[in-house]
């Protein structure tokens, strides 16, 4: 698979995997309205993933004629080491605070990324970003409000947010470490190097943390980079997620209803 297809798949995988994680909350949210909120965000993300997978599939079919692949093949029939999502988005939901913070981290990143992709030389990538950015803006708003509400809430909710910060800390660096497909995207004008979003991202996150009376986070590297989701080296959690998500298509290939 060529690098640009991998870049598109990376964008798709992030959205699909976090969309799936959010969907695990459906029926389990702390209150009905927030259960609905996360299910709606899941729907937006899976919709975005679908648009990216369709784009990737048509590109792959064009470049590698032969067996036709579809969006479903990409979502349901690849194995863990072929997924290109961030380790952050495959992390288990944990408690409400962790889910909220994961969403806030990712949506803030995605919002900046989509803003840059509006200028993509790949017009279809620009079109998907134009569509998605509105949804993402709303996700940032919702999740940042929750970060503030929990951080500046009770001692219990504050503590939960501190724990969430600790839990997710090791997965932040990866957002900004370029992969070979990022370099290709940058040089062809299809995308940007994620590193360019780093300062803005930390500022955005820390300004919300300040309002939320939470400690700021620094750019200091804290993790050893054994894992790299973008290169297919995932945490153990992805395998379990895929086992659940892909079960039906694996057990009953081509099943439709």
């Amino acid at each position: 698979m060529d690098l640009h297809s991998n870049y598109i798949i990376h964008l798709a995988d992030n959205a699909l995997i976090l969309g799936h994680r959010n969907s695990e909350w459906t029926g389990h949210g702390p209150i009905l309205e927030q259960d609905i909120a996360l299910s709606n965000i899941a729907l937006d993300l899976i919709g975005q993933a679908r648009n990216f997978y369709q784009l990737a599939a048509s590109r792959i079919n064009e470049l590698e004629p032969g067996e036709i692949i579809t969006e479903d093949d990409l979502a349901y029939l690849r194995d863990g080491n072929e997924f290109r999502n961030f380790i952050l988005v495959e992390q288990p939901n944990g408690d409400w605070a962790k889910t909220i913070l994961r969403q806030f981290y990712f949506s803030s990143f995605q919002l900046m990324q989509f803003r840059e992709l509006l200028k993509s030389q790949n017009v279809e990538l620009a079109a998907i970003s134009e569509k998605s950015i509105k949804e993402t803006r709303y996700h940032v708003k919702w999740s940042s409000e929750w970060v503030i509400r929990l951080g500046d809430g009770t001692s219990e909710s504050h503590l939960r947010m501190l724990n969430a910060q600790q839990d997710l800390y090791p997965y932040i660096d990866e957002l900004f470490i370029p992969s070979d497909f990022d370099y290709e995207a940058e040089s062809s004008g299809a995308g940007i190097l994620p590193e360019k979003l780093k300062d803005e991202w930390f500022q955005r996150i820390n300004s919300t943390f300040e309002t939320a009376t939470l400690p700021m986070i620094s750019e200091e590297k804290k993790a050893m980079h054994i894992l790299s989701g973008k290169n297919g080296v995932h945490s153990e959690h992805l395998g379990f997620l895929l086992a659940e998500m892909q079960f039906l298509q694996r057990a009953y290939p081509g099943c439709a209803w």
Partner: protein
Amino acid sequence: MEVNNMNREQIIEILSEVKDPEIPVLTISDLGILRAVEYADDLIQIQITPTYSGCPAMEIIQEDIRAELAKHGLNNVEIKQVLSPAWTSDWMSETGKLKLEAYGIAAPATHACFLSGEDRPKSCPLCHSENIEMISRFGSTSCKALYRCLDCREPFDYFKCH
């Protein structure tokens, strides 16, 4: 019915009978998701755009478009989903907004409000009081948020501006 006697305007008229399955008072043209209709050599080419990326109603809408046209003997139909320019609630027709309000759903504010963060309904669609508060940013479908009126005490849906 003689297919060849139809013209583009009549086809658009037929299409304007197709309703949004989630909000059945609105047609697809009220919503502004019907983007283009071309009719040439017996082939009808339609472009629609989703309100939200994952809107599950899009599949049903495509089926409903085909079914409605088939009723008039029009079966040679191509439907293409387009993403750009991205749908905005500003494309909702004025009639559409009135129908929404009458149905009990507050009509969307302008896209400018979405960008400035002033995204909220003007008033309660039931008693028209402006004394309202948000219950949840997300509602029963992707395109709605949940509000309540502090005067008549009724909860209501708000069609978000986007």
